[in-house]
């Protein structure tokens, strides 16, 4: 009795061990010449079912062309990283998988993915077909990439045209102009704020830590892959972002409970916020919330005057990878080639609101030519990949969560000083360093 309870109390130990319990197994229904691939796709559309509806005809077309069957499973974002980890550990992996492109190097470090050497790259249509910055996300420098871009995304600053016009404002081109405009448009009495932020989302928060730090010319990791989160440029960049809520008062403190970007988008679409910083897939949500497509405009996320760099976004989006232990490497590469072909990119661009990852391709996610042009330009010319080091995903969780906590302090009436930020970054850095070893 006693022992059993104690053993039950060791749930975390069991949990850890459980993920290593799986043995080898045959997961693809394969026969000679009759190949079926397993494909894990991340959630891109409005729901998992929506993704299935969109992808099924596309994959059926692939089967028709090649005779290769595809077993599709769509996976939600909250599960994706854990599912991939478990697959890496147990060997019970799909053949082809979608990954958040910022994790690409972290996942590459596990050694579980097939390196795309020159021959493999040739098989999927050549490295030259991809947008250069997008392809950079596929692996650490000097290595064969283990993933290639599939869907492109980039941040932009969305603004409400009518509100700007009524206040006699121009769309901002610098950080200072953005803050001034936001202050002019903030009126807490009516519940309208200049900006809405997903201040409770660690993924959004770490992206802006990166973009603001990069604008300051700071790096998050040194050449050896060790974290440098306490550098002045990083700390200043984070303070600048936090100050939108803390000292500029242009963000509703309630935004601290926004743990995903869609909540900020809804505020924007319903006129509670004049501006949002969002990736280009916000369009569908904005319009679903009743805002007309011509009621908003987009400009690149502005950098402060005299900043070191005018980077306006990280290279956001999804990459596609082949698991190293697949029994059908050739067929898997054929699927990657097909998914990154111009035809499929065009078919999926609209429903998934993605930017083309192929050079010379046209963005089809919107009918608005200006919008398409703005985002394509941000993606191709003013975006930088998140640090291409194995510990990148730990930067995302530790720094992102530290920023959640700091926003919470501000929202509940506390203050976060420069020193507080530096201390929080020191903690995050130590945590990352402990696992880098």
């Amino acid at each position, binding site marked *: 009795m006693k022992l*059993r309870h*104690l053993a039950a109390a*060791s749930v975390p*130990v069991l949990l*850890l061990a459980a993920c290593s319990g799986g043995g080898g197994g045959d997961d693809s229904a394969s026969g000679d010449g009759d190949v079926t691939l397993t494909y894990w796709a991340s959630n891109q559309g409005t729901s998992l079912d929506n993704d299935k509806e969109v992808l099924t005809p596309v994959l059926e077309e692939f089967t028709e062309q090649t005779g290769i069957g595809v077993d599709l499973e769509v996976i939600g974002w909250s599960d994706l990283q*854990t599912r991939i*980890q478990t697959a890496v550990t147990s060997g019970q992996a799909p053949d082809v998988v979608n990954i958040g492109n910022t994790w690409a190097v*972290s996942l590459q470090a596990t050694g579980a993915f097939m390196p795309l050497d020159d021959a493999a790259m040739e098989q999927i249509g050549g490295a030259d077909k991809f947008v250069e910055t997008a392809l950079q996300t596929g692996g650490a420098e000097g290595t064969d990439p283990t993933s290639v871009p599939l869907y492109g995304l980039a941040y932009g600053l969305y603004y409400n045209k009518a509100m700007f016009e009524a206040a006699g404002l121009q769309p901002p081109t610098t950080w200072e102009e953005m803050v001034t405009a936001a202050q002019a448009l903030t009126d807490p009495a009516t519940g309208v704020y200049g900006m809405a932020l997903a201040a*409770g989302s660690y993924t959004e928060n770490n992206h802006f830590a990166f973009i603001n730090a990069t604008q300051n010319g700071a790096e998050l990791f040194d050449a050896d892959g060790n974290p440098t989160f306490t550098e002045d440029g990083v700390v200043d960049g984070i303070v600048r972002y936090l100050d939108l809520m803390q000292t500029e008062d242009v963000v509703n403190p309630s935004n601290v409970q926004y743990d995903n970007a869609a909540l900020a988008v809804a505020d924007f679409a319903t006129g509670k916020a004049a501006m949002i910083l969002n990736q280009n897939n916000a369009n569908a949500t904005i319009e679903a919330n009743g805002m007309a497509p011509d009621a908003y405009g987009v400009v690149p996320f502005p950098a402060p005057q005299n900043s070191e760099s005018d980077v306006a976004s990280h290279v956001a989006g999804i990459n596609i990878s082949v698991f190293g232990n697949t029994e059908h490497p050739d067929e898997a590469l054929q699927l990657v080639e097909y998914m990154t072909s111009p035809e499929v990119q065009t078919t999926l661009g609209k429903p998934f609101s993605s930017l083309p990852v192929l050079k010379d391709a046209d963005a089809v996610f919107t009918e608005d030519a200006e919008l398409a042009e703005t985002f394509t330009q941000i993606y191709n010319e003013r975006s930088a990949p998140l640090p291409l080091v194995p510990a990148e995903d730990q930067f995302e969780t530790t720094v992102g969560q530290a920023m959640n906590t700091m926003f919470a302090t501000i929202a509940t009436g506390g203050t976060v000083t420069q020193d507080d930020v530096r201390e929080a970054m020191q903690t995050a850095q130590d945590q990352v360093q402990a696992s880098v070893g």
Partner: protein
Amino acid sequence: MATTTSTAPPVPASRTVPGRRRRRSGWWLPYALLAPAVLLEVFIHLVPMLTGIWMSFTHLTRFFIRDWTSAPFVGLRNYQVALDFDGAVGRSLLSSFAITCAYTVLVVGVAWALGMAAAVALQRPFRGRAAFRTLFLVPYALPVYAGIVTWNFMLQRDTGVINQLLVEDLGVLDERPFWLIGGHAFASIVIVATWRLWPFAFLMLTAGLQSVPDDLYEAAAMDGAHAFRSWWSITLPMLRPVNMVLVLVMFLWVFNDFNTPYVLFGTSQPAAGDLISFHIYNASFLTWNFGAGAAMSVLLLLFLLLVTGIYLIALNRRSRRA
């Protein structure tokens, strides 16, 4: 197990032969009957536990999870990092541990008190007693996720019914506070966990009360004892065996609680709600540092073993003395 021959003292054949034969032919039976349980125990508890302990001595990170047996052996380093309270990892573990201790004491204490009060109140038959009993068990019967998610909705700052009640309807507060972030998060999680746990205490204590003979209370009443006196001198001692198990089980559950913080706070958990199981999960699965996570798990296991051991020894001694 061979038969004894020369050294055995001579015994009358009529007495030993049937007994011996029975022993010889059936000696394996108890083992065979125990075997399935022992095997299950080994595979479900012992093997994973030993694997976890072994992992805690390795630097098991992303570089090795594909073949975790190849992770380098680092001896006690993970333990040193976890217990170095000047470092970031140790400091956050210590703070998580302190929060969890306070959380456990509060939740178990209040849940026990509520359960006891309700059980005693419903001890005497009255009209509608069955309805109350059913009602009290609702939080326990609800699926964990549904119950906690509902609390999450109710505790939202702008749209939650709790702020609506406190600020708009009753006017107790002037401003809408945040309940799920910042300092109030601790109070919120204690309330939600207590709400979930107390029906269990109520159920166990109600069952326990059935075994207390009525004539004890009658005798006490005749001696002029008040309600509190008879509770103190009759109910409590009679319920000691139930309470012993109840408090221990609740302590272990609450200390290891993972569901409540995970569902109530989601991915953006506040520092004040950083309970230890969730903390270990984060250390393992968010930073891919499974070696350190395993070391923390082992430390947690040792702590729980220690507390449980002391608790049982102390109680045994007391009941032997009594």
